[in-house]
């Protein structure tokens, strides 16, 4: 267990002490700055100009928009929508190389002489989650600052809502990270791992779509891929968002099981 903790912590140094990690962070910071400045700030102004049931809602006629309009802090509503789609993409890119390149280089052999395969697999997964948690935290903090610049009296509700979003986003990213842990155990480079993820994604989407159309009782297959609950998440708010948390959690358990199996059986 202590090895899992050590390996997880080592992942942080991979992100914050290497050129590649710092480049990824810079790219994230720049993209996030653009999102914050133009998307969140701009859209929040737009939302504030309208009221629930107003022009925007009637134009889109959407329960999703209506739900978001009801949020007390529009910046966080926009943050929520953007994060639900943007963070999974970041997650796939950042976590693609959990074990792949180390395996190709032989570094994993040197580590395996001191840590079990389970320790390496779960340590790397936990390390990637720690990095993502930090990125989510940073992104939320910048959004909170944006809210405070507009109206500092909203501090308490902003923090409360931020915490809900923080927990939710962690849960949303769990299965994506687990998926990348699995494919990384199969691949020999980050690029190969990403390709495997895309292939698995497309094939499963096609197969599950076809099966669901032929056998309506198999509609639940829609829930198998990470992110399956995201569109439904946009229609609920507050702690109610966690009502759907069982989907990513079950997905994570299954994907980690598959990844562990791959890690145990693979030859290095």
């Amino acid at each position, binding site marked *: 267990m202590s090895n899992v903790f050590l*390996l997880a912590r080592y992942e942080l140094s991979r992100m914050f002490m290497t050129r590649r990690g710092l480049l990824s962070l810079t790219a994230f910071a720049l993209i996030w700055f653009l999102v914050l400045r133009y998307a969140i700030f701009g859209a929040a102004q737009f939302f504030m100009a309208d009221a629930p049931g107003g022009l925007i809602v009637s134009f889109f006629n959407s329960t999703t928009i209506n739900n978001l309009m009801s949020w007390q802090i529009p910046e966080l509503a926009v943050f929520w929508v953007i994060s639900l789609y943007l963070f999974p993409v970041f997650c796939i890119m950042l976590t693609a190389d959990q074990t792949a390149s180390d395996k190709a280089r032989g570094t994993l*052999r*040197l580590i*395996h*002489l*001191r*840590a079990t395969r389970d320790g390496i697999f779960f340590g790397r997964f936990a390390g990637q989650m720690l990095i993502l948690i930090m990125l989510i935290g940073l992104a939320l903090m910048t959004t909170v600052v944006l809210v405070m610049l507009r109206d500092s009296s909203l501090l308490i509700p902003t923090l409360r809502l931020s915490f809900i979003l923080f927990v939710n986003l962690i849960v949303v990213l769990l299965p994506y990270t687990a998926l990348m842990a699995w494919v990384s155990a199969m691949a020999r480079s980050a690029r190969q791992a990403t390709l495997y993820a895309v292939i698995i994604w497309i094939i499963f989407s096609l197969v599950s779509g076809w099966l669901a159309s032929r056998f309506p009782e198999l509609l639940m297959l829609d829930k198998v891929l990470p992110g399956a609950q995201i569109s439904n998440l946009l229609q609920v708010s507050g702690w109610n968002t966690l009502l759907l948390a069982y989907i990513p959690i079950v997905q994570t358990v299954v994907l980690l099981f598959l990844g562990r199996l791959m890690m145990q*059986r693979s*030859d*290095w």
Partner: protein
Amino acid sequence: MKLLTCQSLTKQYGDVRALDSVDLTLEAGRPIALIGPNGAGKTTLFSVVCGFLQASKGEITVLGHKPGSGELHGRLAALPQDAQLDPRFSIGHQLVMFARLQGYSSKQANREVRRVLEQVTLPETFTMKPESLSHGMRKRVLFAQTLLGEPELILLDEPTAGLDPPNVKVMRRLISEAASGVTFIISSHNLDELEKVCSSVVHLENGKLKGIVDIDNAKTSGYLTLVMVELPEPIEQITRALGAISGVKEVSFSSPNRFLINYDVNVNATIDLNVMQILIANDWKYRQLVNGRTLEDQLYA
């Protein structure tokens, strides 16, 4: 103490049997060589012992445990043939992490890493990245990581491959210095090197165990090896002269200038003196007169 036991150990890649029913027991002690031609299964055997590969069939225990088991952490160390450190981190940073995984605290790990880098005479590499080192230095750093802690068994897969002669000599010295208290198993193609370092040889060929040779025994078992500076007379004439010495059973020649004399120790215990007398009498210049056979002669005679 039993280091390694294999029973019908088999590793199959598709139709190819990299290891074919290997039965082997090795005891702790002086360095052991693992030899065989390319594709003999040496690296595969090392990889199975370290837990990098899973055996297809058979049983194997290392220091009484299954390969890859947590019980072996810190007790089994290895220098895998093509393993590299992560080029993005300094050597010290990575070795400290290895030491921490072996149970050292942060401060102890730092001290231990500095100790092993000192041992391989590369203390200055602590803050350097692997890419800034030469091939020989990288090998020595990788050797240093095997010395972290107090391993009981160290596997070295081709530790001198690609090294220049001075680095080969350094590596041989490092192995000899580290060999007290730990057993090395060394795989290599360089029989001369192995002969200088090891006391017994495990011989693999086509994935099968061909035999185990005790080098020390072979050195004193009725053989003399004579290496000439040049061949002043036809080979047959020299062979005939050496064959005429009392107790000599057979003289064989191997290119370019080596004679292997097989003799009966009970008949002639001072044969080396007789050989010297013949050399002096004929004014034949020799380079070496070695008691015993070279490893090459023992294995491939």
